[in-house]
């Protein structure tokens, strides 16, 4: 449409490349986390996640020789393989941590008391000695090897069901679900009735109320924390799920009313007037006509509210408290960042557990989300 014929192709290429760059920039951080969550702690700390797809050369942790000895031509022998995987290739090895790359593969090295050891490329080792190994401490081998790309689900097993590493993420997942679902469902009906009144009923003070809703839309919820906590304590709710649900309901209402009213105002006037003429009461018009027609707006709000309550940290910290068994996923993650800041396998996996549900909702319901955003801010 734009541009002149001669410039068009170079410009189109420039556009393609810029968009690709932008998308890469926006996608890379998340991909990094996702890839890391499938790697072992060792892999994560040995190399960047971007090299996870290629074979890697690196020094493995020291391996202590073990195995059953047997006699072979007057010598006592232990043989076996250093590596678990057949595709690992040894490039250098050593027997002391000071010189971990001292020997080539297949070199035979003499140790104390006439012991000899050799390690092949494949990791096959052969340890020999003139006398039995019974009661002796076997040597350690330091290997530098190329390992094939390897991914594991172990992190997810540990984080979700394990008892030590990243403990409580599974519980936190349930807690978050428990917070998010009622906090999403309850405001909808309350808001829908109010939105209908503000859209289709005539009464004094209507304009003022709409203005008030618009004003409350931007009031920072930070202001509400202490007064509401005091209130909850005074009426006996204290810190707990009920308090969180009520708080999320209150904080979600302005947006809900605003979105739904904007949508309902746009419904065809004829339908509603006709129903009135036919003798339908407002209650009937609302439940039989307006509510079903408003489904897209209800869906938009439900997605917003679900994402918001799922992702929230502040409200959950304040109204649910910081007891260990009540932490939501976000709070658990903040704790993990403090206590296990260096353990990326736990951190990355926990983080991914916390963002996977919103991502599914996002990709499944993107249409409604976009529609809601547009209704909420473009006029």
């Amino acid at each position, binding site marked *: 449409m*734009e*541009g002149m014929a001669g*410039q068009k192709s170079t410009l*189109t290429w420039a556009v*393609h490349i810029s*968009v690709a760059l*932008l*998308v890469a920039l*926006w*996608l890379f*951080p998340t991909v990094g*986390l996702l890839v890391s969550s499938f790697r072992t702690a060792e892999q*994560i700390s040995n190399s*960047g996640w*971007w090299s996870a797809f290629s074979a890697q050369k690196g020094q493995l942790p020291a391996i202590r020789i073990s195995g059953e000895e047997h006699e072979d031509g007057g010598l006592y022998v232990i043989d076996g393989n250093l590596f678990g995987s057949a595709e690992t290739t040894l490039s250098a090895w050593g027997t002391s941590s000071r010189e971990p790359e001292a020997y080539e593969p297949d070199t035979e090295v003499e140790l104390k008391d006439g012991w000899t050891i050799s390690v092949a490329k494949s990791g096959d080792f052969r340890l020999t000695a003139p006398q039995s190994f019974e009661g002796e401490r076997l040597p350690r081998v330091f290997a530098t090897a190329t390992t094939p790309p390897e991914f594991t689900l172990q992190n997810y097993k540990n984080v979700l069901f394990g008892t030590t590493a990243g403990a409580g993420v599974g519980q936190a997942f*349930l*807690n978050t*679900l*428990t917070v998010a*679902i*009622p906090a999403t*469902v309850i405001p909808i009906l*309350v808001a829908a*009735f*109010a939105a209908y009144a*503000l859209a289709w*009923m005539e009464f004094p003070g209507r*304009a003022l*109320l709409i*203005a*008030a809703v*618009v*004003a409350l839309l931007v*009031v*920072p919820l*930070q*202001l509400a924390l*202490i007064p509401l906590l*005091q209130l909850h304590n005074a009426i006996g709710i204290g810190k707990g*799920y009920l308090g969180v649900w009520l708080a999320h*309901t209150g904080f979600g*209402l*302005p947006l809900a009313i605003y979105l739904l009213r904007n949508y309902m105002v746009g419904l065809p006037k004829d339908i509603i007037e006709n129903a009135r003429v036919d003798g339908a*009461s407002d209650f009937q018009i609302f439940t039989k006509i307006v509510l079903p027609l408003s489904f897209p707006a209800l869906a938009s709000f439900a997605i917003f509210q679900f*994402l918001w309550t799922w*992702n929230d*940290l502040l409200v959950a910290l*304040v109204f649910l408290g910081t007891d260990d068994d009540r932490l939501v996923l*976000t709070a658990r993650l*903040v704790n993990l*960042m403090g206590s296990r800041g260096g353990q990326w396998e736990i951190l990355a996996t926990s*983080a991914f557990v916390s*963002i996977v549900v919103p991502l599914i*909702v*996002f990709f499944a319901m993107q249409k409604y989300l976009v529609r809601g*955003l*547009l209704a909420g*801010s*473009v*006029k």
Partner: protein
Amino acid sequence: MHPALQAVLTIVIGLGGCIGYFWFSNQLLDKVLFPPRGPNIGRNIRRAEMIRPWLFLFPAIFALGLYLAYPVVATFWLSLTDRNQGGAFVGLANYQQMLREAKFWEAIRNNMLWLIVVPAASTGFGLLAAQLTDRIRWGNLAKSLIFMPMAISFVGASVIWKLVYDFRPIGQEQIGILNAFWVWLGGAPQTWLTITPWNNFLLMMVLIWIQTGFAMVILGAALRGIPEETVEAAIVDGANPFQIFFKIKVPQIRSTIVVVWTTITLVVLKVFDIVLAMTNGQWQTQVLANYMYDKLFRAFDWGVGSAAAMVIMLLVSPILVWNVINARREMR
């Protein structure tokens, strides 16, 4: 009781209660108080119609009043009292104490930076993405991917970016992509998050990353709403693509840009999770919302904490007033 069971029960009671309230209150109005029959039928119908809107509105007004309007007043009152003196009125003492704290001024300074950089960068990137993706075949996929961070929590995003900024001592393989890139360029690995004042920008990057998709979606819709004729006329007059974009398109969507800008500004003012999770305000990265949280829930100094909350409210209020004025203008 098990929380999950409690949740199900709450949904049932909450929804059932709402439906019950609306149905019974309407029945009461129509069947008992002002039945539309008998000698006063006209008066009864009129009265019922006067009361009904308030039946519809009551639960919402009650919840809004209790959970948003009342706390503003209560917080203002708290900011004038001292908890240690049993809630005695102390005038502006909390504000004075706050103004004397270096951390507060650090937070204000950083917040101002956030307020300029984040909305500007998000809107800019969003506009760029919206304009570029509009013209290519895989534009929708690209949009989805740029929009995706919107679904990720601030804390989740903080973890994601902390990995990007990760630091390993010199000689070790870098696992953070920023340091890997930096080392590849020939630099020495840096502990990025401790380098003032640049660490502030690294934290801002997280929010920009989240908000750009939002800006892109809204601005994209506005760009598509521009009348074709204006663009065609410009092409006929020989304008180049950049002129068309900056001189024809951007001026026409100015009001949308303002809306996007203010919406992101509101998010910025409340940003707390990112700072808490990544630096917790260390290395001079404090912001107001985290300062307030510190005061309220770590120092338990409700007076100063509330004063900080009022400062946030004060910063929000111009947008509040502007939004209300706009909403009223639209309704006329």
